[in-house]
């Protein structure tokens, strides 16, 4: 890290504000390195905000050089990919996993990986034993239920308000809001039409995704995220 005086990341927040840095894997995603004083995002240095916690979406944990507080894991393909990594590296990179349920099959999930990207209702949560025991035996995890269904109840935290737009970013924001975070720092989010999907992260789905529809889904999801933050009286910034 350089010794130059770092600028303030978010001048508007006060000492007691809890901030959550959410890192996605859009084209503008940058490497992140931080300690208690300085946070380095890409080439730029900032002062670490007081009470900062970090969250990564799906495989964005690889962008962190320090362990992530919350590693959100959305779709099934992400676990498939996670298993390919060395478990020791994963364990040192993610402090806690946050695993949402997707008990219903959503249209956009059918788009991803031709419908097999999501977890169908009947295998939901059983996969924790079958598919990912090697991971969750090692790393502490939260289970959260995304759908407010009268028929399905896992007895875990529910986020019914997400049900109309299930995306891992939305879940991260709702999770943050419910835990009292008031300021959200977003990195690696590119909802603009000219944005392209990071090919490294989407090697499974790349061929099957129509890039236009994917962008619109991103827009839709991002618009929801911002609306959620704003309508809860919280603030955000995009880096």
């Amino acid at each position, binding site marked *: 890290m350089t010794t130059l005086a770092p600028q303030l990341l978010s001048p508007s927040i006060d000492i007691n504000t809890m901030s959550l840095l959410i890192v996605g894997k859009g084209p503008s995603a940058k490497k992140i390195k931080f300690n208690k004083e300085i946070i380095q995002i890409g080439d730029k240095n900032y002062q670490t905000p007081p009470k900062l916690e970090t969250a990564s979406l799906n495989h964005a944990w690889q962008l962190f050089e320090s362990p992530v507080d919350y590693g959100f894991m959305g779709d099934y393909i992400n676990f498939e990919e996670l298993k390919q990594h060395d478990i020791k590296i994963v364990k040192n990179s993610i402090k806690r996993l946050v695993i949402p349920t997707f008990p219903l099959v959503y249209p956009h999930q059918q788009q991803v990986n031709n419908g097999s990207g999501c977890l169908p209702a009947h295998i939901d949560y059983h996969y924790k034993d079958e598919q990912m025991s090697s991971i969750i035996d090692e790393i502490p995890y939260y289970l959260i239920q995304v759908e407010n269904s009268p028929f399905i109840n896992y007895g875990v935290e529910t986020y019914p308000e997400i049900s109309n737009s299930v995306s891992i970013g939305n879940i991260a924001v709702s999770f943050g809001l419910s835990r009292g975070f008031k300021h959200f720092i977003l990195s690696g989010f590119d*909802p603009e039409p000219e944005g392209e999907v990071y090919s490294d992260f989407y090697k499974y789905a790349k061929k099957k995704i129509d890039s236009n529809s994917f962008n619109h889904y991103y827009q839709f999801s991002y618009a929801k995220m911002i*609306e959620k933050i*704003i309508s809860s009286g919280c603030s955000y910034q995009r880096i």
Partner: protein
Amino acid sequence: MNQTINTENIDRELLEIQNLIKNNQNEEVEQKLENLYSKFPNDIVLSTIYAEYSFNKANLKKSKEILELLTKNYPDYLFGNKLYGKILFEESAYDTAIYFLEKALQAANKQNPQIKEEMLELLYYCGVSRYKLEYFHQADYYLSLAQRIDHTYKDLFYIVSELKPLLQIFESYKQHSSDPWFLLAAYKTFRKSGHKLHQIKFFEELKEKGARILDYDLIKLDLEICELLDRNASYQEVENLNQEWQKRNKFAGCVFTFHELFFDKKNFQRSISR
């Protein structure tokens, strides 16, 4: 205003004036009121009627002049304080308006609890306008004000507690004024909370700054639907627009969810059944 006039003590002339006001004989009324007021400037009933009359005729200057004297002579007088507060509010002097409206609220608690709600509403709007002038720290005060009121004023409490996120939008606006995503979220938040003026303001801004990204026509259509709902249009009218909206909103450029529209529809149907 009729409630305030003590009919036992009222002059015949005041009764006459009241009749003239009812019959819209404005020229005579104004002359008579002026003559009478020059003789009895300290009469509480006369002053109230004259101030109210001038206020209704948009003669704020005269009304203010009378009320200044009236509130000086009768500092706890409910209607004097209320009207003076109203006028100051219209003149954007929010601090002094709040001072007089609070006095009126105290008086209303003792004398006339029925209009307490009206006073709180006025205070609320004063508060809102004040926030626009960046008196954000007052938000907590108005929240506690609403909390103090008993459960019959739940609606008002709801309105006031809604304020906080809206204030945050104004605060964040400086930072995000050119971010279309922020403007869109602000538009949708104000749309949900029913703050029409702000909704239109952000709609206008989206026109300039969001064109690159958003399907502007879709938002325009959304605004049209809101307007139809506002003026209680027929169900068919709204349904036609809804269908057009759904045709265009094929996930591509999608910024509103079906859920939101569904909720609007439900509210609409509910309002019709009433």
